[in-house]
């Protein structure tokens, strides 16, 4: 029996670009007055001569979004930065209102856009548990009831009566997450909050999220981490430039997301506006997958060598720069990590790189990868100094297994690697 608990109808949200308000209080009062008397579009009245297209002054963070979620459903929301995910979450969390359209909700909704919201450094752990719980919408009696459980989960029993400003960042996050994890709304909206704390704690948090889903509660889960999307959700929507690009079973949605946005299959080109200012002086240009003849391809053969090249510019000299490639399976399992200065000689040679245009190309041997879909992540950093640039899902590609060892059997073969190994059979 399906029972719709969230229904998003024609939801749109526009942000005004440039300066907010017309600039002076008196102009705004005039506008407001015109509006109050029911004059149409008062902004035009005070606008300068005519720009024609008012549309140009707005950024549509969301445009005509429609979807619904059934009770007990766990829906993933994926999309690149700026695709509108956060805006959607903010509207769902009632932090901001939509420009048009509605979201209808059945049941209590709680959102976790951040852990530890409202934690006050001067208050003790105990006081903060109560404060944070209340901010997230729990009643005092509810927190009383769950306090021991929260304490247990957080692993900070000893320090519960110490002001949280004395906590290590790990303890702080654990306590904060513990409170959040014990919310019991019918609908839970979760942002990237799981990406906190150490690996072990992350595992525990993910497990807890899984439990929440198992208990039949409805969860909306936003993440950049495709493996957690695949692990926690059965279904996902993909957002693109403020629109809903697709809704499908999670593996299909993840696949679509990973291959969408590439100008050409087998190549990821970065436009200037996509590059965060913090990347300076590193400017990524393109990441390409090349077959053994140097042609850009989307699918490589398992039995042939291939290469991955990263093209970039440096607007200033950099010391200690290394370009890293991460190879993951589409399921989210890590296959390998490699850096362009892994080799000792190469490392000595490129202690610093002058400004200029570069390509770092990595050759992969034949008979390496198994049949399937892979994701390349790229990273530019100076070890223990700074990370200039990172794109964990820059490019996706397929590996075609024809001719690989064991192809005489049509069964799927688990594992990311498919090397040609030497077997000896002795008859004794």
């Amino acid at each position, binding site marked *: 029996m399906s029972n719709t608990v969230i229904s998003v109808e*024609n939801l749109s949200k526009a942000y005004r670009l440039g300066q907010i308000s017309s600039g002076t209080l008196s102009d705004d009062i005039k506008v407001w007055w015109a509006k109050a008397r029911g004059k149409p579009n008062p902004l035009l009245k005070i606008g300068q001569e005519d720009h024609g297209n008012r549309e140009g002054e707005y950024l549509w963070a969301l445009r005509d979004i429609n979807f619904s979620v059934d009770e007990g459903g766990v829906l993933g929301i994926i999309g690149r930065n700026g695709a509108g995910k956060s805006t959607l979450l903010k509207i*769902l969390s009632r*932090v901001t209102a939509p420009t048009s359209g509605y979201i209808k*909700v059945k049941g209590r909704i709680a959102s976790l856009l951040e852990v530890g*919201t409202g934690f006050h450094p*001067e208050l003790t752990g105990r006081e903060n548990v109560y404060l944070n719980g209340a901010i997230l919408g729990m009643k005092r009696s509810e927190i009383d009831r769950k306090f021991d459980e929260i304490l247990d989960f957080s692993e900070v029993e000893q320090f519960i009566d110490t002001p949280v400003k004395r906590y290590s960042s790990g303890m702080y996050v654990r306590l904060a997450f513990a409170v959040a994890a014990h919310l019991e709304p019918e609908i839970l909206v979760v942002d990237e909050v799981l990406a906190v704390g150490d690996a072990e704690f992350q595992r525990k948090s993910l497990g807890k999220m899984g439990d929440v889903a198992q208990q039949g509660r409805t969860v909306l889960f936003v993440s950049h981490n495709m493996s957690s999307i695949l692990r926690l959700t059965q279904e996902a929507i993909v957002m693109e430039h403020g629109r809903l690009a697709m809704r499908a079973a999670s593996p299909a949605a993840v696949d679509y997301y990973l291959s969408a946005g590439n100008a050409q299959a087998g190549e990821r080109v970065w436009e200037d506006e996509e590059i965060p200012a913090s990347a300076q002086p590193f400017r990524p240009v393109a990441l390409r997958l090349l077959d053994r003849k140097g042609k850009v391809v989307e699918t490589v053969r398992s039995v042939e060598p291939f290469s991955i090249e990263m093209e970039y510019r440096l607007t200033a000299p950099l010391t200690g720069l290394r370009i890293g490639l991460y190879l993951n399976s589409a399921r989210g399992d890590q296959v390998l990590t490699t850096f362009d200065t892994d080799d000792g000689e190469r490392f000595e040679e490129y202690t610093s790189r002058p400004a200029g245009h570069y390509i770092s190309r990595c050759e992969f041997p034949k008979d390496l990868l198994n049949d399937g879909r892979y994701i390349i992540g790229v990273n530019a950093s100076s070890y223990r100094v700074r990370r200039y640039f990172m794109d964990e899902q820059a490019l996706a590609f397929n590996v075609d297994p024809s001719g690989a060892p064991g192809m005489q059997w049509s069964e799927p073969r688990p594992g990311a690697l498919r090397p040609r190994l030497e077997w000896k059979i002795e008859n004794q």
Partner: protein
Amino acid sequence: MDTGSSMAKTKTALSILGPAASDKWDMIIGPQRRVFDLRLRELWHSRDLIGLFVRRDFVSVYKQTILGPLWYLIQPLLTTIVFTVVFGNIAKLPTDGLPSFLFYMAGTVIFTYFASCLTKTSETFVTNSNLFGKVYFPRLSVPVSILISNLIAFAIQFALFLVFMGYFAIKGTLLHPNWWVLLTPVLLLMMAGLGLGFGIIVSSMTTKYRDLRFLVQFGVTLLQYVTPIIYPLSSMSPKYQALMRLNPLTSIVEAFRYAYLGSGSVNFLQLAYSFGVMVIAIIAGVLLFNQVEATFMDTV
């Protein structure tokens, strides 16, 4: 607000699907809230939260200070001493025959309650933007918690005032506390209401016009001089008195002083006027607050 209104066309097109269309839903998030949808019930449900905010404000303010909560006493005491020296001893302003120390203290204690309610609530959106940007809870719980935590501070300061009253009485000064002291809760309510009303008007407007914050600091100082705190209303010429009575605080301060010290006046018409101003300020403030709340994250 700009964003919302200029998209009016899109909105009307969709209003067929609007809130009225379905009532089986527990909550409908839409572009604009109805003007009078104040959701006071929600505010009532978040009383635990309000209590915790009060506690947080009270505990955190004086943590890591040497004198701790004693600051609640030192502030009005120093103000009163400065007033006594400057206005009483040097400028020799009249105080209706009362000891100038008590006279100033009475005015300061009640005015401070108003002033701190006003300044603190006026910063609601700006100081809490981080919190408001991450999670929803009834936003009005913040200004309400401010009124309550300031009430605690007032209680401490008021107790100090009573101690000094006792001291002066023992020393033989003639004081005339009278039945009007029963009006104290009403006077406090009016001070709180005025502080809240004007405070949330300002806080709603500061989401766009930051300059209002400076105006508040400055305005409170000025207001202190056009409210009969350092001088009795009776010392003014009738023309100025009429002008002073436009200030809704005037009658409250005068009534407070009359009730405890026996000087000043209780004027019902005046109090009714102040009450009216308070009601209007609160209604205007809450409506404005309610509208701004929906989209302020986009402008703050």
